């Protein structure tokens, strides 16, 4: 699975990092970085949680 970030929406609130810190990271530049290119299928629940938690609906999953 891949994470798609809509950069026009992302406000770097960081709730995704709080949900899955090994996958999401707000960098020193204040931008969201995706740390894992291809996320293994067993992390689907975490990713869905991160997408749901996103205040600006900036995240989606691409299978």
């Amino acid at each position, binding site marked *: 699975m891949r994470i798609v970030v809509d950069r026009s929406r992302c406000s*770097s609130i960081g709730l995704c990092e*709080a949900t899955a*810190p090994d996958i999401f990271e707000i960098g020193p*530049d204040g931008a969201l970085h995706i740390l894992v290119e291809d996320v293994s299928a067993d992390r689907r629940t975490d990713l869905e949680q991160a997408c749901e938690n996103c*205040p600006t609906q900036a995240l989606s999953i691409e299978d």
Partner: protein
Amino acid sequence: MTAILTRAERPYDPADISSSEFWASSARDREKVFAELRAHRPISWHRPVKNGMFEDPNDQGFWAVVRHADLVEVTRRPQDFLSGKGITFESLPPEALDAAQGFIAMDPPRHTKIRRLMAAAFTPKQLARIDDHIVANARRIVDDIADKGEVDFVTEVAALVPMHNICDMVGIPEEHRRTIAYESQFADGWRDPRLLQGADPLARVFQTIATVHGVAHELIEARRRKPENDLMTAMVQAEVDGERLTDDDIASIFALLIIAGNDTTRQSTSHGMKALTDFPDQRAWLMEDIDARMPVAIEEIVRWATPIMTFRRTAAHDTELGGHQITEGDKVIMFYSSANMDTEVFDHPERLDLSRSPNKHVAFGGGGIHHCLGAQLARRQLSATFRELLTRLPDIRVVGEPELGNGNFFHTVMSMKVEFTPEKSGPRR
């Protein structure tokens, strides 16, 4: 179809949540009123609050949002419910709003850009990097009380923990810290005669703004001359849309950071100490495995404290909420203290249950774009403070009743006496 009533025509709900008497009563008494509203009239229209500071002739009332689900919905509709018109119940003079509320009282797109500047300093990973520092601050505070046996918990513990940590992050030197922490209380404490001591409320608020901005401008100059590794430096160096922030922009963000940084964790720490006194079985459960159980316990302490009781939004245009027609310009107030007691979400919310999990409290917000920037900082501070207190002063307890504030924004504890057996070996170093 029923006719849509104008603001002036709408009848007011019979429940009183507007009077200063209501806000001067206890959280338990207020909860009785909120429970009735949640059950029967979850979205209701109320008469305006009277505060005697700034009379707004156009203020005809507010919508009260008291259920968890509705609060989350308002939070997540920032295009319909704006923050830029003010975040408190009361209308405030626009100059006070601009000077003291930073990006919390902004809307996108500017909110997004300013908030992004701050984001990196408050992420879970960044907070993990400075955790040693947060723990050291907690240790130093407990060192200073450890041989006293009896202290006012608010001034000697709860106020100092966030003061040192937020000042370290922002870059406020020691000589300004107590002034800044004291002044930050007037963000909500301007209605409290015990704090005002005879001063005119509006004049006192402007005095606070002048003091806080004075420190901000001094630090702006200092960081321009010599950059440091702190938020003040980040702000003077930042560019938004190719432009530097103005000194007044920076001073307003500075004011927000110190108010939000000081007055929130201060309340959570105090309410947490009271709760740990009132629920000894819960405290015993925590102490059985403090390291493993602290993170989940902190969430319940934050729910229990709900340090910010209300936030306001203002309708951007005519819209609907929970079947009610909301008119452009209507004030919509979210009651976090009510949502955190909603039985639709919490089993026996009137009980402190430190093992509560999941704990979908809204004490840090309902998950919208204004979600608490300092949530991870707050968690780490509370965790470090209670670990230090409960392990070193195992019988620390509140004696008597806390003296509470009378505001409608912060859930303020003004003073609260604690007693404990002094630490035998003297302060650890």
